């Protein structure tokens, strides 16, 4: 579903990614593991078109998406949840969800606010609260829900479990498995093996902008734990 070949990216003069290759299938969760500053977030931002790629190819569902502006990439079916959540603070929860709305995709049950509130019940009571008035964890849930409103084929999650209460993390892991079962392709960046273990099908270890190891989590783990 997502195919990345030789991806390089830089912020101005500072090169961050040096030729990444990886791919993820529909119904699969790929975890990008890596320490602080390894380039996980940059990878996801580059896929989303928020950081321009220098070189290489990105394909979504066979279509090339590198070089497209972010909104076109989003409409091609890529959803994105940034690490700092980036909720629209002046919009209500309901409106935050509506901003993400895109037409349903053939062959998949469309996401509606109602369906999402079933996935994240704690948002139910605060539908008309302003985004800026929510706690960090509540914002995280809203950010994930918002990206699902676009009915994406593939979802990029940047450290989604960060800042969530353990019980919500449980719930999130369950939700991710549900999304996976629904055929979504999920690429997720994570430093925390505990959470990664619960959702990952495969993993790539990123170090200083390069892929150091890839395979199942068990195979990659030793290189990371070191």
């Amino acid at each position: 579903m997502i195919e990345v070949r030789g991806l390089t990216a830089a912020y101005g003069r500072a090169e961050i990614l040096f030729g990444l290759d990886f791919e993820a299938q529909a119904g699969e969760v790929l975890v990008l593991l890596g320490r602080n500053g390894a380039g996980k977030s940059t990878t996801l931002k580059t896929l989303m078109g928020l950081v321009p790629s220098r070189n290489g190819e990105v394909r979504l569902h066979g279509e090339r998406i590198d070089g497209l502006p972010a909104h076109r990439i989003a409409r091609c079916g890529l959803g994105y949840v940034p690490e700092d959540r980036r909720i629209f603070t002046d919009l209500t929860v309901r409106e935050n969800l509506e901003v993400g709305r895109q037409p349903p995709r053939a062959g998949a049950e469309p996401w509606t606010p109602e369906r999402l509130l079933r996935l994240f019940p704690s948002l139910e009571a605060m539908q008309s609260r302003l985004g800026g008035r929510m706690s960090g964890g509540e914002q995280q849930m809203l950010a994930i829900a918002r990206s699902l409103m676009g009915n994406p084929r593939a979802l990029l999650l940047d450290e989604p479990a960060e800042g969530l209460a353990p019980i919500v993390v449980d719930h999130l892991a369950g939700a991710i498995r549900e999304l996976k079962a629904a055929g979504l392709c999920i690429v997720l960046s994570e430093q925390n093996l505990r959470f990664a273990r619960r959702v990952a099908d495969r993993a790539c270890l990123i170090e200083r902008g390069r892929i150091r190891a890839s395979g199942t989590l068990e195979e990659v783990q030793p290189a990371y734990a070191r």
Partner: protein
Amino acid sequence: MSYASVLIQFLNGLASASSLFLIAAGLSLIFGVTRVVNFAHGSLFMLGMYLAVALAPGVGFWLAVPLAALAVGAFGAVAESLLLRRLYRAPELLQLLATFALVLVIKDFALWAWGPEDILGPRAPGLAGAVTIAGQRFPAYDLFLIALGPAVLGTLWFLLKRTRWGMLVRAATQDRDMASALGVNQKGLFTAVFGLGALLAGLGGALQIPREPATLGVDLQVISDAFVVVVVGGLGSIPGAFLAALLIGEIKSFCIGLGFSKLTLVAEFVVMAAVLVLRPWGLLGKVRAEVRGAGALEPPLRLPSRGALLGLAALFAALALLPALHAGYTLVLLTDVLLFALFAVSLHFIMGPGGLHSFGHAAYFGLGAYGAGLLVHKASASMGAALLAGPWLAALGAAAFGWFCVRLSGVYLAMLTLAFAQITWSIAFQWDAVTGGSNGIVGIWPSPWLSGKTAYYYLTLAACAAGIALLWRVCYSPFGYALRAGRDSPLRADAIGIDVRALQWAAFTFAGFFAGLAGALYAFSKGSISPETLSIPRSVDGLVMVLLGGIQTLTGPVWGAALLTWLQDAVARGVDYWRAVIGGVILALVLAFPQGAAGFLRERFAR
């Protein structure tokens, strides 16, 4: 006043509130979404007026009005997509420079197309007469305007709060990148919003033609009114703009009705200052979350390299040796360049490291000039005493105004500084007995031993170089660092014991002092001062210098000052449409070097 005439004044106020609202709503909308302070909004209004006047004889008034509005809207959309769109990632306020260049270009375009004379528009067919209200006659057309304001308010409110498009606009207002990552085409959205805002301005202008003739001066007059309305109402709040338009419209109408038309301007700005001090976000405004995904990062301030210091020393030496080789007009021009460089550097001190965007810095330049001038003129002080004391008047003014200003931030602060500058200007302009009114003060000449061009040049060089060096040095001091800290993250600064407001207040006063020094030097170099020394265009010149040179660099304002002063001198003397030429040059520079001239050089040499 009788009851009836109060009523008529009130209705008059309502009618002018409507047209104020149209222009303010567009300005507020554009700012809310694109964070561009559109200085050209008044020019769009003016364009609407002229176009409607030009079209009306052919197609009739009622068709001319919408056509003119649409044409202005289309022009706005084109200007956004060709010009501003390239600048959203540039350091903040650079777009301001571009819109200011548009003011110049549009003004000369109107001059070229329609000539310098005022043009009277037609009456509105069907509404040309008057109705009798409480025994007095009141124009029917004004009743139509009174009804139009709320109608436009309702439409806009519905559009923004009840439609999906409006919701996307509000989302993109806060976080462009995130909105686009959710599939929102923000470019299209921004163009549409800019077009809509321009259309409203054009409509406001076109609807005005039965009431007043189309004139070239209307652009800046309207823009400063619109700024006041937008800020009093709360940026980005359309209902707020409506309320504020009512307030300001009524104040104007009653000032005129009661025979205090001289006080109109002051009253207007006093109301604004009062509202902002009591409600720093305007009547209906909200504290704004920071915009994300906009603007360029400022690089850290590095200590200058040995090479850079040597370069500056060489420049100083060259300037000091120049009179030996060359005299005459060059020295006069260079004197101007030097004191405007000091003015620009003092403005940069609060705008750059301080993050306090002052749109009214000329007030302190002017206070310095008037302080010195009055001492010489009224107290027969010597030049030395006047030069030393003048800047203190400026510092006093800056301390007084700054106390209010630092309670605000961002564009609110900018508008309040503008308001204070306007108040200072109108005092200088109207207080004939002391300031000499519009004639100003003449005969402020330097002491005999400094009266030669060369001697005065040396005085200016020494004072300005010392002032600039001091201001630069302070940027590297703990004070300068703390100032930048307060700008970067007030939250963090507060949490590590920094009293951000007190620092900003001190910086504002400090910068005011040096602007005043430049002003005092200016007074003696010209021999006379007039209210022009503290008018809006002078403040804008300061902004242009800082932004053109590069706000994120230390030396930028000096190059900006040199460039603009030279350009104004060279072009204004030789060319008919000199405003358009300067506007064009500014546009070209902005597009070519969005980091400013000095920023561009730094990028080149850092490579």
